[in-house]
């Protein structure tokens, strides 16, 4: 389906995707450094290409440097909603007659805004008075008008035409995702269909049309219910994250708070688009059976015509230092689970590379310290994992350890056992054998990451966007190799402290029979 909110799921191991060229035997194959071709358009768009001629196919990853982190309170969920709207087509695709359609869409927006405002005011008033909400005469009239306009707008719509064109031409894996830091659009096509992609995507970058807005807002509400409200883990991580970040936007759920989603407007969405989706904020990685010179010509002819947008607003809010442990419980009709997070610096900071090592030593593989002790030997936990870049990488983030207890053991026992291992990191140096395992794993992952076109395209576009250069993946390997056992001890002692941590605990709650979805405006 269209959207995957990747950044919310723990366990995206950024480290596991590093590419370098230091594997014995790997020297025979052309190294990645030699294979990536870079091209920058005058309007600021970056193109990265890798030729692979195994099959006549191509994978394309288009990544914008925008995500939940660029939102304001009251407008949370905007980046993700825009991602949905981006599939609704343009002035030429997805419509039977854009000029006539536009007039109806303008009316629909006016009525929709007024209806949102009145419904919200009336339902707040009803709640204050302790009465059930019932739509007033005026609201009912607005609802009728809204429905008429929606039906009229519907007459112009060619449903999902952009996706349909891709599929018809053999496209597979059409998808998009919004995270804290980035938004991406992906597709794989038979290689000779690249002009179709360039035509559709340059049109979408230049002239998107926010049709079927209110319906898609309803779809996003259903997505929120599915991924967050009805999901024990979804709810645990939403609450945990917003507890750990009190000022910075990393604390806000990317899908948006429910009340904000229901208040998003076409005008706010369009303004967001104009600010963040210009060519100067885009990187395209194209991997497969291509001829780079032809691809550059194609992209210059299509995307090259789009003017650069004004510079992207910079993020100003910083999370203040945490002064004392924060603990939060989340009640849910599910078995217990635990998440522990420590604030840490992010990409490029020397200590970030040390965390990459700590992450691997603690949880990577069945011989890792936490798996070995908690799961295999002591049998306190059914699972344990960690993530060194939660919930994003563009700003200082969290090192997170997550575990589920193995009954009859409790989250408290598991938590204590985890702290024991963290103290061990501070007290004694990691062994050379452990360190060797970390590097072997990194190097092998790096070779494996070259296997799939789409995986490689994803990596290149990701690091280009969040680190400023895809070459980060090459330098990171050497920076990790330079980490010393003393660094690990120092960093563990500095960051893995009680006052710097946030603990979220999912607590079993017996089901109650209350009605779901009370008081929601539904259309």
């Amino acid at each position, binding site marked *: 389906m269209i959207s995957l909110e990747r950044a919310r799921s723990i366990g995206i191991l950024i480290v596991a995707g590093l590419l370098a060229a230091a594997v014995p035997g790997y020297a025979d*194959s052309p190294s990645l450094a030699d294979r990536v071709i870079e091209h920058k358009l005058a309007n600021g768009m970056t193109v990265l290409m890798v030729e692979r001629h195994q099959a006549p196919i191509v994978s394309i990853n288009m990544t914008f440097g925008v995500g939940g982190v660029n939102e304001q309170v009251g407008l949370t969920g905007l980046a993700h909603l825009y991602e949905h709207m981006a599939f609704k087509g343009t002035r030429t695709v997805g419509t039977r007659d854009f000029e006539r359609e536009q007039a109806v869409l303008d009316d629909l927006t006016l009525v929709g805004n007024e209806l949102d405002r009145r419904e919200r005011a009336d339902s707040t008033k009803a709640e204050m008075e302790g009465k059930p909400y019932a739509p007033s005469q005026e609201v009912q009239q607005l609802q009728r008008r809204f429905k008429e306009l929606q039906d009229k707008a519907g007459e112009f719509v060619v449903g999902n035409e952009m996706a349909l064109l891709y599929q018809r031409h053999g496209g597979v894996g059409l998808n998009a995702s919004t995270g804290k830091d980035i938004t991406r659009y992906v597709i794989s096509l038979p290689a000779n269909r690249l002009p179709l992609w360039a035509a559709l995507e340059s049109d979408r970058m230049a002239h998107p049309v926010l049709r079927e807005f209110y319906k898609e807002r309803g779809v996003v509400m259903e997505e929120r219910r599915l991924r967050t409200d009805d999901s024990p883990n979804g709810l645990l991580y939403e609450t945990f994250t917003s507890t750990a970040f009190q000022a910075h936007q990393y604390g806000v759920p990317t899908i948006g708070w429910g009340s904000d989603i229901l208040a998003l407007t076409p005008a706010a969405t369009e303004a967001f688009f104009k600010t963040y989706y210009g060519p100067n904020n885009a990187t395209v990685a194209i991997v497969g059976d291509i001829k780079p010179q032809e691809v550059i010509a194609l992209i210059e002819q299509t995307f090259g015509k789009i003017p650069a947008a004004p510079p992207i607003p910079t993020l100003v809010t910083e999370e203040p230092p945490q002064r004392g442990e924060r603990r939060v419980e989340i009640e849910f009709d599910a078995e217990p689970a635990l998440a522990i997070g420590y604030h840490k610096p992010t990409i490029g900071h020397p200590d970030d590379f040390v965390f990459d090592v700590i992450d691997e030593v603690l949880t990577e593989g069945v011989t890792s310290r936490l798996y070995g002790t908690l799961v295999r030997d002591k049998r306190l936990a059914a699972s344990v994992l960690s993530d060194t870049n939660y919930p994003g990488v563009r700003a200082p983030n969290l090192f997170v350890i997550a575990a589920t207890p193995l009954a009859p053991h409790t989250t408290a026992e598991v938590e204590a056992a985890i702290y024991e291992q963290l103290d061990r990191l501070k007290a004694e140096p990691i062994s050379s054998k452990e360190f060797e395992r970390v590097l072997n794993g990194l190097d092998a992952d790096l070779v494996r990451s070259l296997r799939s076109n789409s995986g490689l395209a994803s990596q290149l576009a990701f690091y280009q966007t969040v680190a400023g250069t895809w070459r980060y993946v090459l330098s990171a390997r050497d920076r990790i190799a330079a980490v010393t056992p003393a660094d690990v001890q120092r960093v563990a002692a500095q960051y893995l402290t009680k006052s710097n941590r946030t603990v979220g605990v999912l607590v079993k709650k017996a089901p109650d029979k209350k009605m779901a979805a009370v008081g929601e405006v539904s259309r």
Partner: protein
Amino acid sequence: MRRVVGQMSFLATVLLLILHATWGWAADLATDNPRTMRFPTVEFNPPDAERVVLDNGMVVYLLEDHELPLITINATLKTGSWLDPADKVGLAGMTGAVMRTGGSAGMSPDEVDEALEQLAATISIGFGKESGSASLDVLKKDLKRGLYIFADLLRRPAFEQGRVELAKLQALEGIRRRQDSPGSIVGREFAKLLYGATHPSARETSVRSVESITREDLVAFHRQTVHPNGIIVGVTGDFEKGEMLALLREAFGDWAKGTVPDVKIPSVAESERKTGAVRFISKDTSQTHLRVGHLTVKETDPDYVAVAIANDILGGSSFRSRLFNDVRTKRGLAYSVGSGLRASVYDEGVWLMRAETKLASTQEVVNRFVANMERMRNEPVTDNELEEAKEAYVNSFVFSFTSASSIVARLMDLEYDGLPKDWLQQIRDKVVKLTKDDIQRAAKVHFNPERLRILAVGSGEALSKVLASFGEVQEITLAPES
């Protein structure tokens, strides 16, 4: 159930891309209207794998691919949880899991784990319903060491007692947690509603069945079902065929043949299949999690391809499908909505429509399911829909051959299922020939409103009222798991 149709790419096949293509699209750029763009079908002759049978009956497919210094060995094993005794459900799954974790004749469990992680190699072993699988993924330089461990685990697993106990504890924790999420409940309970709770395609482990499994049971299950003449091996990556065959003969050649089970899944009683049912499960959720459907054809049924394309147009093809357009795009009632067809050569298939939606729109969504199903039965699909389905299929065909490992995996699957090497080619030819009448006829026979089974997980009493218009509603009460 290893091939799933419902996504077009699964219909696509290995062997026949002899279609046409040229580069030089630069000439076509004058017409940059994506609606009218036309491209030649891509030409591609994928490499063919070599098939060798060892003296002990082990089948080996080999396909070299020298781009990266990696080697992957995959094996499909003739075993599966369909063989689980009724009082030891979970036995096959646990046998596969502990073959990987429990050490071998030559190495302790810890030695295996440490060796693999030091080499940055992975071995996984798992037994599913109709087959088992095992794989080794290793850097070229570590092949010999990796292959030794792999073969030792397959042939001489030690099932160390401590690791057996750990696997049992993990299985019990899994049981304890399986009612946590409504999505997991609705999937498992719908299978039971279709096949019956004791059928191999729906039955579940219980605390009692897991507790009753012993190390001796695992040893016996391995001894009875894992034999070289029941194994198909596929090797891809950076190797040379002659050397690889010598290594495989060294690792597996002296392994004696045994009696291999033939996969047989019992049929569901005809009487059971004919009736509809409406059921709900009460869980405090913000959405109703819906499954609506019934049992359907096997993959070898003459109607299979027509049913697959009918399903594709109804709800299988994501954005193109009628259900997606109707329920999600036009009405905004669900994030995830569609239909699915899952069929294998062994077992009755499943056809279902699915969505999650808030309580207030539950009835409307079920109504749209039924209405769209009836429309497939009562009127032919449009010319455009049929053309789109066929074009999507033919044009995405090339994605079935994207790598040496995908080519070999397909050959292994077909051989395991006793299907001809050109099976997918045959399916492709049938797709291309399908008519609107074929699709309507298949829909009429195989999408049956009388047989619909409806399952909803959600907000208790209110939900049962909402469902009452679809038949007599009964509650399924989940037994406490611990």
